[in-house]
């Protein structure tokens, strides 16, 4: 589905991503792990079009998508969430969802002024869809709350919900579990699994929580120092010498072996 081929990203003299190559198979939930500073988030940003790679290319379903801006990638079905939740804080939860679908006729000013009937009809559809999503995520009681007032975990759910407003093909999740309590984390995990099985979403997620990875991901890819170190099931990765060494080097061995 997604092929990353020898991608480099340099900031001045610092090589954040240094020749990473990997593949994300269609229908998989791929985990991306690695010690801090391994270049995971930078690689995410390159794939998602936020950063332009210094060298290398990224393709999606055989089509070169290197350096395309995020809003174009969105149109191709590549969506993402953020490490720190990027909700639209002054808008309600429902508005956070209804804004997502592209090509709404009401986004053109002419229609907003002079074809209000058509816009209103579309809007009803959108609201219905948004309510379904909220129900699916079990946060429908929050629909008219300002998104800025949600808890950290609820914001993450909301971000996941945004991807459900359109027909996403690949969703990149950047530490979706960070700072989320156990109960909510389970809700998020359930949602991801259901989306994967029921809707055929392909996921790629950066995660530090090994239990969470273990529950959801196959395969798991481990990065270190800007390169891909190993790929396999969670148990294979945990047993991999290079991986242990990489984590040891940064004093985080216990996190892997725990």
């Amino acid at each position, binding site marked *: 589905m997604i092929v990353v081929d020898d991608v480099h990203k340099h900031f001045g003299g610092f090589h954040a991503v240094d020749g990473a190559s990997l593949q994300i198979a269609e229908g998989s939930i791929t985990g991306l792990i690695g010690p801090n500073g391994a270049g995971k988030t930078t690689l995410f940003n390159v794939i*998602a079009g*936020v950063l332009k790679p210094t060298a290398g290319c990224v393709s999606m379903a055989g089509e070169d998508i290197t350096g395309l*801006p*995020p*809003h174009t990638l*969105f*149109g191709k079905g590549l*969506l*993402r969430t*953020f490490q720190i939740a*990027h*909700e*639209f*804080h*002054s*808008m309600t939860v429902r*508005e*956070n969802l*209804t*804004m*997502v679908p*592209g090509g*709404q006729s*009401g*986004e*053109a*000013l002419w*229609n*907003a*002024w002079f074809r*209000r009937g058509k*816009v209103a009809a*579309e*809007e009803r559809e959108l609201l219905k869809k948004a309510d379904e999503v909220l129900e699916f995520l079990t946060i429908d009681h929050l629909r008219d709350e300002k998104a800025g007032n949600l808890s950290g975990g609820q914001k993450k759910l909301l971000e996941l919900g*945004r991807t459900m407003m*359109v027909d996403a093909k690949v969703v990149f999740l950047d530490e979706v579990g960070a700072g989320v309590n156990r109960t909510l984390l389970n809700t998020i995990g359930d949602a991801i699994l259901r989306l994967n099985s029921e809707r055929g979403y392909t996921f790629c997620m950066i995660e530090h929580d090994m239990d969470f990875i273990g529950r959801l991901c196959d395969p798991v890819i481990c990065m270190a120092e800007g390169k891909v170190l190993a790929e396999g099931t969670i148990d294979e990765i945990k047993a991999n010498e290079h991986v242990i060494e990489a984590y040891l080097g940064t004093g985080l061995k216990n996190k892997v072996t725990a």
Partner: protein
Amino acid sequence: MSVSLKNTLLFALVFGLILATGIFQSWNVALGIFNMGLISAIMALGVNMQWGYAGLFNIGVMGFVALGGLAAVLVGMPPVGEAWAAGGLRVILGLVLGALTIVAAILAWARLPHGRMRALAVLAILVVGFLTYRWVFDPGVVAVEKVNPAGTGYLGGLGLPVLVAWPVGGLLAAGAAWLIGKTALGLRSDYLAIATLGIAEIIISVLKNEDWLSRGVKNVVGVPRPVPYEIDLQKSEGFVARMQAWGFDPVTASSIAVKLAYAGFFVVVLLALIWLAEMALKSPWGRMMRAIRDNEVAAEAMGKDVTARHLQIFVLGSAVCGLAGAMMTTLDGQLTPGTYQPLRFTFLVWVMVIVGGSGNNLGAVLGGFLIWFLWVQVEPLGRWLMDVITLGLPDGSWLKGHLLESAAHMRLLTMGLILVLVLRFSPRGLIPER
């Protein structure tokens, strides 16, 4: 107190102030303030679109207002046939050549392979183009400006009804905003601010120095009006008779009638703009804009083309400012480029938006009226205040003279104070965004 009640009271207060002016000073003054208040409100709406909806920090308002004013001249004034004959075509040809040079340079930069050759080629195009442009353009300008410099000395306008100039003013400003937005919108807010401030200065210096265009600093007076002249009303027997029958002084009545006619035009424009702005804000378009302002990165990731939308709103807001500029020049009846000062036409409009409430159309409109009222009335207020303060001082003392003479500077001080106080105690303005 409910929100709508509070808003109603605020508007009632501002219009009450204007009414009080009418009762205690004169209806002419009140209507004069009301008319400029309407224009100020439209300018504030334009800035509010850029700042309130999209968070774009444009402090080049003055430039767009001035372009609107230029439109009033270019559309409304009669053409100067003699000047066209002397060098009009040459001037136009020169401008076309200049534009072609820039287009060619941009194309060369985009199409040629990277390297030293590209830089040299672009430089060569620019130098040759610049010289040809000057060679064609300069003699034309000299010829045009030689034609009766004290009275005309410019190409004149199209001689169309001046109301046509209003949308044209908007278009002219929109065109300039598109060019500026294409180059400068990628910059972060502080840089964008300075870039727009500078570009506004450039627009003004073009207006001041290109005499062939709009007489430069020699000003264009007698821009046609969409309403009758007071003096014609005073001469019209029907009007005089009717006013006398109603018990009004025909002279006062004529100037009030003219002001009311202007107010009618302005109110129609303002209401139309408010309707359009409100409809837009309530629609999915407005939702998208708020999303972009809340979080550009997320909006981009959710498929919204942030750059294109910024450009759109920048162009729209500037067009509204241009429209207001054309209306103002029509009301003044003249274009005086020296009038355009950043303190008055950029920063004061910003005070209106911030005090009124950025992001809220009604807030911007309220700010426009309130700040314009104060801008006009703080002067007599300051004088009166100084009179009171200096009451105890002996006549002819240095301090008394100094204080009385400095009263006029109270105006700037007050505007700054209001801005700072509002930002401190009601940072979202008098009518905050919902």
